[in-house]
């Protein structure tokens, strides 16, 4: 099975790296669910509607703000999928901002 390399900026600004199984059409949120279930139970991220309406799953995806439930998981220029919290506001944990 194809795997992709995912880098996630954590609360303490360190970066955790995961090799995640990848199927065509997976969203960034699908990737995060895989990480929570099979790689790292401490990863914190937020979502709700899964249909691009509530916007609570917004995060930096390969350097740009986007909705993790709508954005297809794609590699950035460095060959990794890079996820980080939005730069503005208080971070509660990992990718979760105070809203």
């Amino acid at each position: 099975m194809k795997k992709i390399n995912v880098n996630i900026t954590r609360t303490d600004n360190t970066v955790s790296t995961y090799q995640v199984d990848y199927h065509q059409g997976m969203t960034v949120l699908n990737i995060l669910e895989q990480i929570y279930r099979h790689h790292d139970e401490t990863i914190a991220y937020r979502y709700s509607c899964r249909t691009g309406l509530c916007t609570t799953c917004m995060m930096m995806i390969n350097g740009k703000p986007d909705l993790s439930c709508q954005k297809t998981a794609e590699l950035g220029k460095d060959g990794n999928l890079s996820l980080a919290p939005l730069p503005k506001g208080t971070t509660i944990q990992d990718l979760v901002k105070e809203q």
Partner: protein
Amino acid sequence: METLTTDVLIIGSGAAGLSAAVYAAQSNKDVLILDKGVIGRSGSSTGAVQIAGLGEWSDPGDHKQSYLNDINVSGRGLSDPQLTTRLAEDIEPRLKQLIDWGLKLDKDEHKQVAISHTSGHSVPRSLSAKKGKTGLGITHTLRKKATNSPHIQTWSDVITVDLIKASERVIGAVVFDLTTNKTYFIQSKAVVLTTGGIGQLFPITSNPVQATSDGFSLGLSVGARLIDMEQIQFYPVSIIAPQAIAGFCISFYHYAKLFNNKEQRFMEIYQPDTLEDSTRDKLSIAIASEIAKGNGTPNQAVWIDARDAIEQVKREFPHEYKVCNDRGVNLAIDRAEIGPAAHFMMGGIQINQEAATSVPGLYVAGETAGGLHGGNRLGNNALSECIVFGAIAGMNAVKEAERATILSVDPSLWKASSEYISHLFSATNGRVRPFQLKDEIQAIMGQHASVIRTTEGLETAEKQLKRVEHNLASIKITNTNVYSRELLDAIEVRHMLRTAKAIIKASLQRQESRGAHYIEDFPQQSETIQHTFINNKGGKLIARSQPVKGGPT
């Protein structure tokens, strides 16, 4: 445990909870509204496409009585006439108020409020805001109103663990703040439950991840009565594949055609008069029957073909068209794989027309309340229910708060809740992760409590849920950081298990097929129309039936 006090505590902040807060705050009482996600953005209301309603724009043939008739006919005899009457009476003033507060209804090409037809309504009365993102429009309007009120305090990321009762009254709740891992007792003079539905009890659902049935479980735990919990609406036309949007609702099925794997337009057999423009219960049963017969796709779905009506789809439902297109399903060219997804709990905590429950101090509104929609909720009536009964609950909770006083409370009342939370923090050596328990419940409910049920299947589900309950004691939690998804999952799974048991019990109790409850052993409707009730007696769930008010018809 730290104690906080408020006059009115509202749990859940979708359209019902926010309405309750805004109307409660019209007094000078203190209102605290909680959400386990983000206030105003984590409920099913967000995804609601349209709202049914009356107003100066209504079709000349539309009025309170025709709306009321449509709801009562759709309810298959199970809608409580007191609740349906209240909805028909109050919808116009509540909508007008929302418009005064800034809600903008979408207009047609003549710059008039656009009204559209929805299956089951005898006249066009569906309204839209933000081009088919009506729930978002309504929650934005209410959220703005709530955050501007000096009497309303909002609190995101806090989940309710237990309601607390003293001298037969609900006096508050034990809550857990996910951002600090602190537990609080919130003492209040009245509590309003507006926690939404049950979609997450099933493997495929249109509902947000937060729809884990918390309110039904909280109500049961303090002795509130649940009505008709077997009546779960499955949204007939939901995306099955691709998995990334599984459960996504397609609203334009009445413009489209459904085909099985033999290229038959099978609705010609099930509903030759209405075809796809049928009510949700009948359509779900038809689709599930086709799939069960082996006439589905390998993904256990059927096909929707909207190509002949694609311009209308793009114009009226641009968000749905775009979401599908973004995931590689271009409805102008492709057909999509659809099937029923768990969508709406029509049963719930029994309320009267004042949104009061059988337990003093406890009010319920929105999807968590039962009795309004009976055996089949009409399309676009969910938001209508939220804004009408949310307001009623808020206003009556305030009246109750004016009568009640805050008494000193014995801390022993929340000892069990406190011990439960401590247990979660010491469950590092357990065996089963919380999400696995959720998966188990979803698999059981998906297999045995979906659109087509059997007595044998429901009995199996009852046994299997006992096993999940047993496994709950061996829960394993290793992440006790703040915002731990494991702690959240663990608290939610306790609510899910309680509600799942109630649904199975109610489904076994209804020995007939009526509305959304289709059971193969009893495929016909009985002549006597009865409600099912579930009560909690000392931790044991008791089911009973009772003829509807007004007796047999």
